[in-house]
């Protein structure tokens, strides 16, 4: 991605407030995002919410960067009613890392974090009720991981239930 550095007042205030936590402030297609370290999530989001009025968590999701060492990219979509601006905050965690839950800052994160857990198997430390939300409780595996293939799931089902090899 040809993202460009984002310079301005907000990035410099953010860097001053959380100097250790921020990796980069970037823009792409006019959309701004901030890359931070996983242990700084609460600090950065609290700063953005309270000091910069980014008080609305539009969305929260993850992307499986299968080949990167910090495998999962967790993306927080913030919106500020006061400035009518959007901002994405991203952090990267590996398979065995547990990012901290932001339900304390944004109650809306409850179901969103459950969905990320359901689809990617990322456990959020401190979530009040982390369990599957869209898939059945007994479901095995995490479908939105890149190593889960629709075709393989289909072949397994045919083998287990019809006792034949799938022709696909």
């Amino acid at each position, binding site marked *: 991605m040809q993202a460009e550095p984002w310079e301005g007042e907000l990035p410099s205030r953010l860097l001053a407030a959380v100097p250790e936590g921020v990796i980069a402030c970037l823009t792409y297609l006019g959309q701004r995002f901030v890359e931070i370290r996983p242990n700084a999530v609460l600090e950065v989001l609290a700063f953005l919410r309270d000091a910069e009025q980014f008080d609305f968590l*539009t969305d929260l999701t993850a992307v499986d960067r299968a080949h990167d060492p910090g495998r999962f990219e967790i993306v927080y*979509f913030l919106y500020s009613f006061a400035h*009518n601006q959007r901002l994405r905050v991203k952090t990267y965690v590996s398979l065995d890392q547990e990012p901290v839950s932001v339900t304390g800052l944004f109650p809306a994160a409850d179901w969103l974090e459950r969905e990320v857990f359901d*689809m990617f198997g990322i456990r959020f430390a401190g979530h009040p009720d982390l369990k599957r939300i*869209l898939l059945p409780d007994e479901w095995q595996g995490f479908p939105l991981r890149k190593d889960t293939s*629709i075709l393989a799931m289909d072949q397994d089902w045919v083998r287990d239930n019809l006792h034949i090899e799938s022709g696909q």
Partner: protein
Amino acid sequence: MSDSTVDPILEQEGTFLESSEMVLQMGPQHPSTHGVLRVILKLDGERVRDVECVIGYLHRGVEKIGENRTYVMFAPYVDRMDYIAAVSNGLGYCLAVESLINIEAPARAQVVRVIFAELNRISSHLLWLGTHALDLGAMTPVFYTFREREEVLKIFENYCGARLTTHAFRIGGLQYDLYDGFEEQTLTFCQSFVHRLDEYERLLTGNRIWRDRLKDIGILSASDCKRYSVTGPLLRAAGVAFDLRKAQPYSGYEHYDFDIPTRDAGDCFDRYAVRMQEMRQSVRIIEQALDRIPRGPIIAKVPKILKPPPGEVYVSIEAPKGELGYYIVSDGSDQPYRVRVRPPSFLNLQALRQMARGVLVADVVAILGTIDFVLGEVDR
């Protein structure tokens, strides 16, 4: 209700009936849950102590499908999320991909898109109004609203052959040009529809039962809306004039003259009132758009094989239910690396717990109705 009064006979005998929390399963096949939603109610008598939603019955793995289809192939799938407002789903997806490949739809396509999106807002709100009234025991409105909705669906059918999952738009513009007589048919609908809206209001707005069932029920304040990321009519009913068509205009909405209806109380009645006003505003937008459909091409030059450069984009629109967003990550191939849909219904439904604590069971039905969720979109 159960805390204050003690039956005198029981008191005399000194034996109280043991009261314990009752768990009531509402759904998954309950008419008021509009689809397959299971609501677990924890009750103290008729009062709701706590609510838990069980969702996922309609999960089809839309986001995973998106990763396994090309950008063009995935477009019809998004119509199956909020199937009541398929046009909005398609519009959001097209806009997201267009911004990723840096293409803008031609002027004619943009105006037509606005007309269809607003027609779809009307048909979505009409379906909501009819079924919501039915839930509350008013049988009549559903026949009227479906009569008008039929007119909208006929326009869709004439245009693209489909009534619900229209797939009306393409990446870069439109597949079909307008049919002969489109303007007259749409204008006739708009002109009669305003009077129909007056009729609905005469039936419901001043109706004492309607008011009693909705007033001061399921209040969600503006600050709670923000805490729970609630958007759309629910947020506007709480007094926040937030509408993406005004806040971050797309498809040329900045050129139309319309208002954002808001109310203050944030209760069920205000959500009803906001949606009624929104339909009038949609008519205003459509009438302006019909006057200014420009001539010209309907689709921009789009490469046969779409390979957006590596990157990511988040684009959101004001769907009938709230903010509908698409977050698309491209790795440079012809298939999206990741498609995330930000469904308004999913987040609005989450706030049910906040709204339904302490109300009566019958009020849960009213609250569920005024959230106006579609489970195809909640579960994806």
